[in-house]
């Protein structure tokens, strides 16, 4: 698992080099997953219907999530730290404006500019200290507080991310509430290892109920499929139940056939002793 985590390998500006960036335009599986996650994130954003909004895409990469925003008629501005990924985005001729910037240094926009913010698989990068001067806690706080400032006061921010452990989740949610956000973590398909997706849904307006998480219809957790006990009886087809009178008589019979010294059967055979013994 840890070997497959790109955050462990190199800082984002190094990891997403030209070769890695190329994957995001050619690998249809990566594209599919990114598009699906973006669609879900935009759904969670609860933007007003039929009104074009200005959305900030944090860690936009090659602009796959931006294209989904375009399809739904919104304008977007993307930020990313990797120039190779942004170059790919330019190549794809996305409509949004792109900015090369480190999220941990803050979001450089005027207050109240955006109607919403999405981020697909970017937040976990902020939990790493790639330079000696980096303090993840501080960087997350700067990130969340500047983001809070540049969102309008009914906006939501939805982050899809891959937390490495429970501490990371706690760190992220704590820093976001410190910055003034309300909201919480939403886990889609919590019972599946692969399809499980973490969404941090934050809103600026005040406490609001979280939308329901998606679950797989087939795995219903309060439905028990089989019991071990019943299976045991099934396996013993044709045999007597152990320690029963029939079982003991059969066993004595077998021993007699072997020529062993066996007590004769009586009405007391296989009766339990009374408690006085």
């Amino acid at each position: 698992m840890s070997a497959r985590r790109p955050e462990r390998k190199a800082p984002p500006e190094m990891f997403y080099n030209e070769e890695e960036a190329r994957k995001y335009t050619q690998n249809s599986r990566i594209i599919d997953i990114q598009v699906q996650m973006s669609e879900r994130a935009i759904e969670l954003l609860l933007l007003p219907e039929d009104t074009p909004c200005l959305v900030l895409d944090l860690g936009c990469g090659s602009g796959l999530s931006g294209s989904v925003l375009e399809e739904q008629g919104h304008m977007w501005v993307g930020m990313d730290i990797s120039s190779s990924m942004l170059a790919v985005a330019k190549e794809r001729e996305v409509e949004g404006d792109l900015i090369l910037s480190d999220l941990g240094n803050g979001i450089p926009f005027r207050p109240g500019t955006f109607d919403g913010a999405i981020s697909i698989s970017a937040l976990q990068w902020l939990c790493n200290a790639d330079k000696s001067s980096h303090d993840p806690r501080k960087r997350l706080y700067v990130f969340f507080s500047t983001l809070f400032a540049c969102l309008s006061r009914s906006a939501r921010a939805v982050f899809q991310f891959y937390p490495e452990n429970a501490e990371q989740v706690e760190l992220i949610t704590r820093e976001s509430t410190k910055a003034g956000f309300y909201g919480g973590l939403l886990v889609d398909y919590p019972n599946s290892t692969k399809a499980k997706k973490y969404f941090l849904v934050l809103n600026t307006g005040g406490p609001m109920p979280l939308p329901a998480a998606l679950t797989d219809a087939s795995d219903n957790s309060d439905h028990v499929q089989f019991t071990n006990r019943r299976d045991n009886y099934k396996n013993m087809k044709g045999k007597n139940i152990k320690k029963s009178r029939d079982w003991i008589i059969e066993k004595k019979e077998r021993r007699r056939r072997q020529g062993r010294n066996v007590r004769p059967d009586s009405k007391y055979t296989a009766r339990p002793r009374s408690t006085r013994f």
Partner: protein
Amino acid sequence: MLTSRCLKGVVTGYPLGIVAKEIKIQESEFNKDFITRLIPKLDWNVFWSTAKQIGYEGSLTQQIIADYENNENFLKDVHHALVEVDIFEGELICPETNRKFPITDGIPNMLIKDNEL
């Protein structure tokens, strides 16, 4: 709408000065609702002077028109200056520290060094 707020000691960091070396026009669909919703968020004076500086102010005036919601031509000009004009090569300059942020291929580079934090 960019600021240089993240830099050390910069309080407002707005407006960023613009030096445009190469400008490209990218055609894009005019969306009336979007522009109407965006105008209240703009600092009109800054927007107008920037547009004038790079020479794309069109028929825009220093004072914002009162009933801009219904003035299609005005909205189209705003759309042109705001969305379609793309500075391809140039610089953004912080008004307080004169720190320059280069723009290459239409992407402003807002990366800052550790000692500027």
